[in-house]
């Protein structure tokens, strides 16, 4: 069961704390060992090999097998990942694999599976804390610009909580977004869009024009105020989701929703989305990709005023 803790909400000291570099990641040159960023008590281990198939598991998707509380997936040429009991991730690298790519999928899909196994919610979202300490989860699939607009908001003094997948738990009275990242992944054109020189940044992996942009980041868990689902449109439109429909919005924004049943977590998923929906607003915001990024950032800022 997930450990329930009462989170420290961001306070005025967070700005100062956020300037202190935090151990949130795995340096690719070193063995992958230690807890996952933002998930205390979890453990990652680099192992020599993993079984080709998951005992008692079924094939649920390409290169993905699952059973209750265990999921095995492979990225050919990179690594195989075994995620168990919401606690551990074993990773077996393909010989000569790009270790930066191994880390990418470890902090992405493997971490997402582990959050599912804990009965918590992995939201496909970049989450930030606004200067008024309200946290906003920007939910949308890849390529719609959530990291780019997150970078624009960070330039306005917002603090990054998580990029790509946000771990959200329920502490009995509020939804908690857990900090896991102090950098955003941006493509070269997005770097230029927010005034950053990509050539001065660390590349996400070899062969890809995608870079890590260090940002100011939240040091403590944050109460999630609103989940915003972005949609591509030529016009701006903002629709507040009725409380009764918020859980559905959260379900639709769940990372790899179809893994839930295979992992035996259907009841947990329904429970946590319903709980979060009690205190977290839901908004549909149309206008992604078709407008200047600062205009989209303005619209998001309006939602937490």
């Amino acid at each position, binding site marked *: 069961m997930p450990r329930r803790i009462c989170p420290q909400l961001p306070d005025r000291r967070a700005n100062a704390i956020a300037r202190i570099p935090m151990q949130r990641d795995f340096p690719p040159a070193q063995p992958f060992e230690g807890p996952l960023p933002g998930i205390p008590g979890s453990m990652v281990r680099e192992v020599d090999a993993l079984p080709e198939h998951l005992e008692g598991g079924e094939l649920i*998707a*390409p*290169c*993905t097998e699952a059973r209750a509380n265990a999921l095995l*997936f*492979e*990225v*050919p*040429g*990179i690594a195989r990942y075994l995620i168990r009991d919401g606690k551990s991730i074993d990773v077996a690298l393909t010989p000569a694999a790009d270790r930066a*790519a191994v880390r*990418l*999928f470890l902090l*992405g*899909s493997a971490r997402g599976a582990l959050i599912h196994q804990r009965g918590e919610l992995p939201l496909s979202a970049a989450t930030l804390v606004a200067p008024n300490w309200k946290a906003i989860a920007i939910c949308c*699939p*890849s*390529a*719609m610009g959530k990291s780019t607009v997150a970078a624009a908001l960070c330039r306005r003094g917002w603090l990054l909580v998580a990029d*790509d997948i946000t771990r959200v738990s329920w502490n009995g009275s509020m939804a908690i977004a857990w900090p896991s990242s102090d950098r955003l992944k941006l*493509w*070269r*054109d*997005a770097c230029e869009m927010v005034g950053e020189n990509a050539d001065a940044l660390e590349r*996400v*992996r070899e*062969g*890809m*024009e*995608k870079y890590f942009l260090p940002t100011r980041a939240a040091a403590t868990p944050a109460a999630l105020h609103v989940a915003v689902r972005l949609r*591509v449109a*030529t016009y701006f439109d903002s629709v507040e989701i009725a409380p009764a429909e918020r859980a559905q919005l959260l379900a639709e924004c769940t990372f*790899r929703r*179809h893994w839930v049943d295979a992992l035996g977590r259907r009841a947990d998923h329904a429970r946590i989305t319903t709980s979060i929906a009690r205190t977290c607003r839901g908004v549909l915001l149309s206008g992604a*990709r078709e407008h200047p990024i600062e205009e989209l950032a303005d619209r998001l800022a309006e939602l937490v005023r």
Partner: protein
Amino acid sequence: MARTLILVAGYPKSGTTWVRIVFEALRRGPGQGISINQMEGGYYGGRRRLLFDEVAPVNSADLLPEEVDGFLPEVFRALSERGGAPHIVKAHDCAFRTRSGEWLYPPDCVQAVIYLTRHPFDVAVSYAHHLGLSVGEAVRHMGAEETVAHSDRRLRLPLHERLGSWSGNVSSWLDVPGYDVALARYEDIFENPATSFARLIRAAGLSTSEAEIARVCEATQFERLRSEEERAGFFERPRTSPNFFRAGRPRSWTGALDDELRAELVHDHDAVMTRLGYDAEGGANAAPDLPAIA
């Protein structure tokens, strides 16, 4: 494995969007409205990325193009097992095998391939408009064997595509074993849509009435599609193009393609043009590879 995918394939600007809209409307059946922005399926462009990210264990945005290709055959197999079949899949890729030796579109889940061609003169002019290139640049693209439609600098919403050259794209599909390929020329469909679509519908293994085909053909006339795009936009329009539906009429290259570029296209694609009945004057004649229009 369920053979439930119907590929509507062809080099860009050969009519695949039009035919896909017609097939999707026919698949949905009578009584359904027809709108270019309310078509489900297609699994092309941004929707293919969404499908990929839903099914594959890792997101396409974190993968190199060859790695995405490696997952795609299984992604299409997963799609073929879903309810709501058949699934219409639009494709501009040439027929090719991934690094592991698998066909990108596994024949064991493909019910039929509708392969569309259009005179390369018209393709060149339309493709230039589509990509925001000069016509000369579009002609070079059409002659390049390794053309991959993607960008290194930014993440496009659509997944990348491996087009090959215009000739290579056509030959790859017409000569590949393992698929049931029905070839159709844009020019023939334009001249006689009801008859052409009836043939293609049969070839795809679908059954529908003549009245329904006539209704859908009427609703998907080029001018109607263009008018809807002017009124409401079209979600598949690339940013590089002011409008997706430009000039549906054959020989719309006139005035936009000079002698030199026409000669370059003929030089690059003469064998395949001859095979398809496309002459050096921009016309479409009878061709041995094409079935007679009933």
